[in-house]
């Protein structure tokens, strides 16, 4: 048995488990937690194209979630257009906005880029909170939009149970992971990586770092907006302080950094650790020790950064490889 074969088997096993979970996890609560886990893993994977491969730290990605959520919701509530179509429309709007943001900011480095993206995110949130109507479109300012939970069905992207949502976000996650995997192996991925580590050196080699980053930002904002529509249809209520919030942008970045930015598996590992920590500590401590769950969350962030500043992906993959080499390959010989 070769290592490649083992990897493939492990992958298939993993997918098999993921697809069959709803068959034995009947509790809607845990499906709900899992759906949000996949949702965050999806967002982080999309973020990773810029934040991981391109080596900058965007802290305003919730803008694209918000654009996606608002576009599809307004189109479906006011014009009866299926959220599936709105999803694509929102993604294209986000793409354009992403390019507009990227053009001036991607030249910046380090702290400036991070702060610029925060300002973009917050600025757009403030504007949404101050605007009730854009022409005929009713965005309802700070009050947000509720989606009436009446018309379930595939066309309406609305379901009574959790299972359809589970499979939709799972498939979205698998697709986005495949895409990042392909990108990381492509010329674009190579350019991004080179430009992320040593932009000057990369440019000297004739790599157009700026163009590569711009492409990454465009893809990233497009993909992020798709998840925005999913979020709107899943929670059926959106308002500026949730889908355009700084908290959301931060959480996406945290998951990536904890998991290991710039790696394909990083976002999954990060989400697997941080999401349960934040949900479960809130559930168990939120009621009698208010705030303790956020203290735990903060402590986990610090501890991981202290002991594994490159994220958890590195040590985990090392362990994985060693187990395979020692336990399986040896016995195979």
């Amino acid at each position, binding site marked *: 048995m070769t290592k490649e074969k083992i990897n493939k088997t492990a992958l298939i096993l993993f997918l098999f488990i993921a697809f069959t979970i709803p068959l034995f996890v009947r509790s809607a609560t845990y499906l*709900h937690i899992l759906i949000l886990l996949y949702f965050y893993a999806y967002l982080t994977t999309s973020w990773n194209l810029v934040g991981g491969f391109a080596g900058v730290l965007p802290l305003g990605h919730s803008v694209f979630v918000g654009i996606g959520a608002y576009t599809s919701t307004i189109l479906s509530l006011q014009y009866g257009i299926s959220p599936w179509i709105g999803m694509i429309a929102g993604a294209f709007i986000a793409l354009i906005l992403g390019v507009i943001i990227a053009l001036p900011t991607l030249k910046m480095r380090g702290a400036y880029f991070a702060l610029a993206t925060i300002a973009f995110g917050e600025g757009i949130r*403030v504007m949404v*909170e*101050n605007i009730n109507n854009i022409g005929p479109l009713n965005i309802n300012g700070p*009050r947000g939009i509720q989606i009436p939970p009446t018309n379930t069905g595939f066309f309406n992207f609305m379901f009574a149970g959790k299972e359809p949502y589970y499979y939709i976000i799972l498939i979205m996650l698998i697709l986005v992971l495949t895409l990042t995997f392909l990108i990381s192996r492509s010329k674009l991925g190579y350019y991004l990586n080179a430009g992320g580590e040593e932009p000057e050196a990369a440019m000297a080699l004739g790599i157009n770092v700026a163009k590569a980053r711009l492409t990454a930002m465009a893809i990233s904002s497009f993909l992020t907006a798709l998840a925005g529509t999913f979020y709107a249809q899943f929670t059926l209520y959106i308002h500026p302080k949730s889908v355009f919030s700084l908290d959301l942008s931060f959480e996406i970045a945290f998951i990536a950094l904890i998991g290991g930015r710039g790696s394909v598996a990083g976002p999954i590992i990060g989400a697997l650790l941080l999401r*349960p920590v934040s949900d479960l500590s*809130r559930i168990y401590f*939120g009621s009698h020790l*208010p705030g303790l769950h956020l203290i735990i969350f903060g402590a986990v962030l610090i501890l991981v950064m202290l*002991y594994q500043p490159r994220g958890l992906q590195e040590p985990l993959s090392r362990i994985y490889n060693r187990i395979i080499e020692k336990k399986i390959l040896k016995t195979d010989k």
Partner: protein
Amino acid sequence: MIEKKSIKFLFAAVLAFMLAFGISAPLKAEDTTVKIGNIIPLSGPSASLGEQGKYAREMAVKEINDAGGIKSLGGAKLEMAYADSESKPEKGVSEAERLINTEKVNILTGCWNSAVTYPVTAVAEKYGTPFVVPVSVSDKITEQGFKTVFRIAAKDSWWTRDQFAFLKDMEKEFNGPVKKLAFVYENGDWGQGFAQQWKKLAEKGGYEVVLDEPYPSSATDLSPVVQKIKRSGAEVLMLVSNAADAILLTNTLADYKVKLKAIIASGGGHADPSFIKATGNNALKYFDIVEWETDINKPGAKEANEKYNKLYKQNLTGEAVDAYLAVYVIKDALERAGSLEPAKIKEALAATSLKDGPGMIVGYPSVEFDETGQNKNAALVMIQINDIGNGPERISVWPKEARRKGYTPVFPMK
């Protein structure tokens, strides 16, 4: 070295993952308990209000359980499950899902923030779980055609209606006509909802709106807004504020010596227990509309407040009383339902006509829900903050039958 650390982390990650699934078995509830899920903001910007709601619920539950629980259910005890919304709708929705599906609560209450309550109503409706809303004033909460939602508090169109009725009465009583109004409110679901109603009522009442100013509740300096109020020439200022901004606004208004005939607030931040402490004499003569006040003339109210004050070192507020009453409304419905079947509980809640009992320390004679689930008797009381010898306190002034004996409201203020 690094390897050891990595293994520790792998272990932690696996543990976290297992936790996520392992604990999915619901805690085994004894058959003699009724489980009530409560979603309230225990951390984040509205934590102070969440805390009051929790205290009031705890007091009611202890009283009911000590008195023998729900008799028609064989003395079943009430058991509370609290969940923190952090004032975030998405957290509220997640918690509602969990409380209903995993904790298997029989009834849901909450969530104070209208922005959280609103999406949670949809979750409760989906699962058919009865949802008792003590306070969340947004009109739309009971206007979605849902059959599971029951609200104790008055809705915002009633609050604003009563604020204007009060103003008219004051003008008449003290023969001091008012023409110019200023509206200043936090730029959120709550403030915007009030402002929308105010504008309609002002037009109907023939007032002139000289200032219509939303402000972000995250503002660090409100003197520009105060300057605007001062320069607008307004006679009456109407406010919707959260706690931090209510305190800041009150102190700044006093600093700039803004002269107004009246300031009418809308509960919330102005009713927060720390408001009077943090503003001192600056809040004197303020009017504030609330659901309940400590000097209410109702048997049991004084005792309840004394007990609450002894336990939690603060006075009952309208928010707390509604939460307290909500538990008694639930108890009453459970007694009549005699079953934990959601449909039966809903039916019993819909048929509520609670007239007495420890929970009925509110100003109106009974709790009854209309077909939308709104408590149709919910009434409001206007109070004035004043110092009549015991330091600043909240004194009921309106409606006239609720006015504290021997107190004459100060109108116009000055």
